[in-house]
């Protein structure tokens, strides 16, 4: 895997100079800000109705204005929303080479194609992790600004661990999206794959088999479902297959784009 460090530098440059980090950061910031909005409303629903934050008909069934409710909202949003947002990042990082028609410039270089694929995967992972950390920090800031009632530090630790594990599982599941972007040459097909995966996830959840469908696992884990090791193994195997498929595609497939 020669010249990996330089390949990572190049991938970060390409990501940094685009508008995608800003858009994804704004998208993910909606999670703690939206949660904060509900905390504000729950703190004083009557005041929220009076000033027009919510309509008179709004049904508030979210819970209480406290840290456990807020952190649970965050955890669920990262578990479910991460699939979409991290998947979008993977679609963009791989698919842009086809949309910008720059792939051909990466195929006959002294830097191996595997190094380029790995550098892209590293950028996706770091980018997704940074968004998760940013979301957690905004949550802490918003919660503190709303003066939510203090809780034991263990509440924060537990939520932190759950969010971290859910984010890692979700990041692992970006590799099949990277494969779809490579094999179908662009952004849109992997987004279609993502929507399909989420649709199947809904069905498997409804049928009670969600813990065996990889794209359902992070959300179920975030909800606090008691998942067995099989679920985690299925996610890891899916990630490995996606990664291997992407490597093999870049190394061995005919590249005509």
């Amino acid at each position: 895997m020669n010249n990996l460090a330089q390949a990572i530098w190049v991938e970060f440059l390409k990501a940094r100079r685009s508008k995608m980090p800003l858009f994804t950061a704004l998208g993910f910031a909606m999670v703690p800000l939206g949660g904060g909005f509900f905390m504000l409303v729950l703190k004083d629903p009557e005041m929220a109705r009076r000033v027009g934050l919510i309509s008179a008909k709004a049904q508030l069934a979210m819970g209480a204005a406290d840290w456990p409710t807020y952190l649970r909202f965050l955890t669920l949003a990262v578990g479910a929303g991460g699939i979409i947002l991290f998947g979008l990042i993977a679609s963009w990082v791989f698919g842009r080479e086809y949309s910008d028609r720059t792939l051909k410039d990466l195929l006959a270089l002294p830097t191996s194609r595997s190094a380029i694929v790995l550098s892209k995967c590293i950028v996706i992972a770091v980018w997704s992790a940074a968004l998760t950390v940013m979301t957690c920090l905004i949550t802490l800031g918003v919660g503190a600004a709303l003066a939510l009632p203090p809780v034991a530090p263990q509440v924060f630790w537990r939520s932190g661990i759950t969010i971290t594990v859910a984010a890692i599982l979700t990041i692992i599941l970006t590799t099949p999206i990277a494969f779809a972007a490579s094999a179908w040459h662009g952004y849109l097909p992997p987004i279609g794959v993502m929507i399909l995966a989420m649709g199947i996830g809904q069905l498997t959840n409804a049928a009670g088999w969600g813990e065996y469908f990889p794209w359902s696992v992070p959300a179920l884990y975030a909800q606090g479902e008691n998942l067995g090791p099989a679920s985690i193994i299925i996610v890891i195997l899916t990630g490995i297959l996606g990664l291997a498929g992407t490597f093999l595609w870049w190394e061995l497939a005919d590249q005509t784009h």
Partner: protein
Amino acid sequence: MNTVIETDNLVKRYGDVTAVDGLSLRVAQGAIYAFLGLNGAGKTTTIRLLLGMVKPTAGRARVLGTEIRVGSKKPWDAVGYLVETADAYPQLTVRQNLEAMRRLRPGTAPQAVDRAIERLGLGPYADRRAGNLSHGNAQRLGLAKALLHAPELLILDEPANGLDPAGIVEIRNLLIELARDQGVTIFMSSHILAEVSRLAQRIGILHQGRLLQELELDELERNRRRWLLVRTRDCQAACSMLRDAGFSAETTPNAAIRITDLAAIEHPEAIAARLVQAGHALTLLNVEEEDLEQYFLRLVGMDGGNSK
């Protein structure tokens, strides 16, 4: 002389379509070899085969002594290339695009970026985003990426694409200089024979995936058809007279006589004397030559019989 590019019976099929059909060619070190063909002739597929981007269905290709396989890691440190259109990351500036390429080519000095910018005349655009470049400057950026690491071999797909006339001359001179002064081998494709004839020493003509003809530039000149064009007050009568004298003469749609005999082409004055003696005053006497486009179209069977 070392062979830099060597293909043996190279075939590439996509389903029922044969893009490259039994291509065998050799390109010597320091040569400028042009690959000429219409759109869809198989030029870009050949270039992709040489760069290991697609697998051959049959045959083999060697570049700089290395057998090319899809995904092979050699010999790319010594090869610069431009395939199809010159594309770049639109959000990166010219300089950043070159810097990215430099880092992916280990061993290339940081100063190479400035050198490439200067060499391709991109100085005024160095800090402009690639997405905002004109077509011609985007092409220059593509060429700068290919030249960045001072390669031994340049594989260029339509290098003059999008350049204005001054740019075409500039790039042509640059390529000639690289081949002449630095021994760089240049393998380029084009569909413009006139441009190719000013640059290349050897030309391969590709049509429907097959190499129709490979020839040196002077052979190309020799192979072009010539004829003597004559016009008189009465072309029909003059033509009959010439035919009676044993010449292959025919009238043309624009009321002239075309004579294709070598004797007539080499001695038009003899024809003129013969016609005047027979009482046919000349209004036109001119040796004409098939232009390069006509020659090419005749070769690929697309001239509609115009240059007989």
